[in-house]
């Protein structure tokens, strides 16, 4: 019972086609090298003082990689949490409420990380 326009757009019942699926995969692939780098950093800075961390993140490449890791990981998290909400919350109102909560939380966490990195860069 699709209208010609719906058929042309090919977006189906989700209203977004395979966009969510595809973004989840693209961010996952990007996170493979980025998480390995993050692990290298986390172990490398374990047991050091804040001076070591300041010097490390003051380097542009390290700050850029950390920002990329944070943004992509949070994007991936928002997509994943959306699926969890989709699966377990069945009323439209609560669903929208939790979607908004996830998005606000992700943006708050991300901007906090970027702010901290900028503050370190400015020191």
């Amino acid at each position, binding site marked *: 019972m699709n209208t010609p326009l719906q058929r042309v757009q090919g977006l189906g019942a989700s209203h977004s086609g395979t966009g969510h699926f595809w973004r989840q995969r693209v961010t996952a692939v990007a996170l493979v090298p980025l998480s390995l780098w993050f692990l290298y950093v986390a172990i490398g800075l374990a047991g050091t003082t*804040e001076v070591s961390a300041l010097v490390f993140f003051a380097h542009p490449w390290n700050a850029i990689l950390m920002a990329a890791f944070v943004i992509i990981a949070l994007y991936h998290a928002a997509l994943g949490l959306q699926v969890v909400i989709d699966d377990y919350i069945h009323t439209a109102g609560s669903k929208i409420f939790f979607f908004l909560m996830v998005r606000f939380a992700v943006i708050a966490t991300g901007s906090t*990380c970027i702010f*901290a990195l900028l503050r370190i860069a400015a020191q």
Partner: protein
Amino acid sequence: MADNPQVPGAQQRPLSPHLTIYRWPVTMMTSITHRATGIALSVGMVILAWWLVSISNGPEGFESFHAVVDTPLGLLVLFAITWSLAFHFCNGIRHLAWDLGYGFSKEASRQGSILVIALSVILAVAIFACVWTGHGGYLR
């Protein structure tokens, strides 16, 4: 449980996936654990934000972060997140392999599940052992 649409008033029978009836296969374990570790890692991102802010706050800020994280409970949470990352990483690669069409057979998915569980535990323990034996902190 659902009404049988064909026979009104027929005996109600359980519907798949029979969570409370069958013994859990290991593939079911890894599937739900992937989701649980994903949620744990989302919380971990908040701790990462706190760590970055504490670094930017200078010595006092950094110490206040470590005052919480260096407690037994803090280290337990840190270990749980480390293992979550190891598991979600390994099982995520399994998911990407499935997307390419590999590893769908019953035996392959069972062996893959066991491999991912073993590998994630080994990785998490290795990361903590690495730091505790003084092999961390090389970015000093």
